[in-house]
């Protein structure tokens, strides 16, 4: 009986005597988010313009951080894996930056044929950044023949936490109703696996490639705010770039980003 008493005491003690450092923490970890228009109307766009450019990284490029593979070494550790939160290529090209129109209210519809998939291969999510139209299903692929656990840390939509056993090669996920993002995707089985999903209400989103390039096509002529998001470099939501697109014209807008 004494030991139960001690347990009760432990709880009591915990409840009474301790500091408040924890309280100050909450909220500070909040990730910067994309900004979406209040409403969006899909329509035919003819003679639209193009916005394109290159995103570069400025500053000392930190050394690539190798990930520690702690389980399923045969499948996961076949090649060396690196942290993907910052991938800087030749000429300081910055991969995986989302470049998008913040305030567009009408434009083209989503490409209905586009595959919206994230593969889990070699215990890594590919792509690292995925754009998912609101109302569309994201399909999780499992090329590994081991178990993964798809854990999407949504806050506006309901979070997803679904095991994908080894026999499950394709796992479509329920479409979400609200725009949100980026939200992190993790695998609880392999703690190092990480990717980002953005549920978006319109198709004017691009993710930069290895060369840091992006292109937004079929933009109806007009004035827009051009935003970006990068996992390690943050956003420009506070001060987006203004661009003017002429019918059939091309606008070039480059960005140079620094670590947050």
């Amino acid at each position: 009986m004494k030991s139960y008493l001690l347990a009760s005491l432990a709880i009591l003690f915990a409840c009474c005597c301790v500091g408040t450092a924890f309280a100050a923490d909450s909220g500070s970890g909040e990730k910067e988010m994309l900004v979406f228009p209040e409403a969006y109307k899909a329509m035919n766009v003819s003679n639209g313009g193009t916005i394109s450019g290159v995103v570069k990284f400025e500053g000392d490029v930190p050394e690539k951080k190798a990930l520690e593979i702690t389980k399923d070494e045969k499948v996961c550790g076949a090649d060396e894996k690196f942290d993907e939160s910052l991938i800087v290529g030749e000429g300081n090209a910055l991969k995986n930056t989302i470049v998008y129109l913040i305030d567009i209210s009408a434009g083209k519809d989503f490409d209905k044929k586009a595959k919206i998939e994230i593969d889990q291969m070699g215990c890594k999510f590919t792509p690292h950044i995925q754009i998912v139209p609101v109302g569309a299903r994201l399909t999780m692929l499992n090329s590994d023949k081991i178990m993964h656990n798809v854990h999407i840390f949504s806050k506006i939509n309901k979070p997803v936490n679904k095991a994908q056993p080894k026999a499950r090669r394709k796992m479509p996920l329920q479409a979400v109703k609200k725009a949100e993002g980026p939200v992190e995707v993790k695998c609880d089985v392999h703690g190092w696996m990480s990717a980002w999903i953005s549920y978006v209400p319109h198709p004017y989103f691009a993710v930069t490639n290895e060369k840091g390039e992006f292109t937004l096509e079929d933009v109806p002529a007009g004035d827009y705010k051009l935003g970006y998001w990068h996992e390690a470099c943050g956003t420009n939501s506070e001060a987006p770039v203004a661009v003017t697109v002429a019918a059939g014209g091309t606008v070039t807008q480059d960005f140079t980003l620094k670590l947050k």
Partner: protein
Amino acid sequence: MRIRTVALLLTLFGMLIVFNFAHAQNAPEASEKGKEVYENSCAHCHGTEGRGDGSAAENLLPKPRDFTRGLYKIRSTGTGELPTDQDLFDIITEGMPGSSMPPWDTALSANDRWEVVAYIKTFYDGFKEAETSPKQINLSGKVAYSEQSVETGKALYTELGCVECHGNIGRGDGTSAPDLTDEWGFQSWPANLTQGWNFRGGSDTEDIFKRFIGGLAGSAMPAFEGDSFPGFGLTAEESSRMIELDNKDEMTEAEEEESAQLYEKYDAAVDIALNLAEGTELSAEEQQIYDDAMRVVYEKSWHLANYVKSLMPEKRPEPAIGNNVLRSQYIQDELPPMDDAAWGTLEARYFPLVGQIVIEPRQFNPTIDAVNVKSFYNDTEVAFLFTWDDRTHTTDETDEETGKTLEDALAVQFPVKVPQGPTAPKPYFLWGGRLPVYLWHWKASAPEQVTELTAKGINNAEAQAAQGELHVQSTYTNGQYTLWVKRALKTEDKKDLQLEPGVFVPIAFSAWDGANGDVDTKRVMTSWYTFVLEPVPSSKRFIYPPLIALLSVGFLFGLRAFVQRRNSEEI
């Protein structure tokens, strides 16, 4: 006759349903009263704004629930659903075993608890915005517990990947266990399925089933509802065939074809499930496919729940007090080594461990539940077998904050001198004080060695000059340590405890889980318990006490007979 029985049963069944309906209540409108009760009783841990960041939250793990996200672990509802009011009421009433959430059944009136439920719901708008009441998990297809069902469940346990976190036989020691975090980034240990008494939401088969189908929202435990089952839409035979084909290194053309067809059927059923979840109306045919698929999934889930149930004892063992005092069993022969079958003939004694919270640094979030002990002795020696569950085998890890080396360990504590009689003072339970204690200290980094210590306080322990009187064996398998220690009953060392049959000796334990940051005073422990070398009636030295007892009983019987005879004579 038979019809009447059926009618009676139906009536009873009906009453049961009505009763169940009457049982599930809804909370009243949120009121000032609820706010007042919340702020007095809940806010210390859960925070005035329900963010789980009250002043006491810092040291608690699992963390107090953050109510602003609408994520509740213990629900009767499906994945992605909010809890029912009754769910919230039940948690407040019953508390959450294994966490710091106590039951409030006596501290708060039922009325106050309902008010609190209403108030808690105001922290998350989703409750207000919900158009329909949350969908509850259907428990009607329960599969009765049987060996067959447990077998089926066991296969699913591996197939579905439960082992990854919960380990081979459920001790929470899976290879992913150390890396799990919850929605808020805090460490989240998978349940040790052999310790049902620590399950947050209870350990009835129905509870297990609900956690499995609905997941524990906010934790790493995923929901295994419907379409996440491998082979959704297939019959049990078809899905095992699908997995069988998957596991083949090479398939023939015919097998490729067969596999593809199974996958096609599977994908089609998943599509239907998603359509339904997204609000698309199903055709009658689709509904049929969905219902059939769900029947299979639910049946499998009951098998799995039965398997998990089979991993735990019916209830938490009684602590080693009263009739359960640790009694070392006498044998004439050589004492059995660690892996000897003879140990299986003894019933273990259960010593629950709690966090050490008297001296800094403290342990508020213990991960080791208890140490189980068995013992044999013969004319010259005593042997102990200690077992305890620890999810991780830690021998050499560095604490990021303090730089100290973390490792798993166990210490067994005795007084140096046995107190004479039950009222005589014992040394202070925290490693002694004015009265010293004698300790056996075992560490995972030196598994074949136990150090003898003498201590006069928790920070005042010294290794004895004379070591090496102990024989030690140990193993770590499937999330459990086993430690075997043998010593002579009598030693030459004056600082050792000397043992004698029939004498009650205080005993206490400390344990460290390195992966949980346990080091030095940060540990789990017990206060004093008792152990005794059980005297043997056949041995002449111990014949007198039982003889006296026997004689007394005989005398009492005689007296009773005498009194009875006299009474009957009087009548």
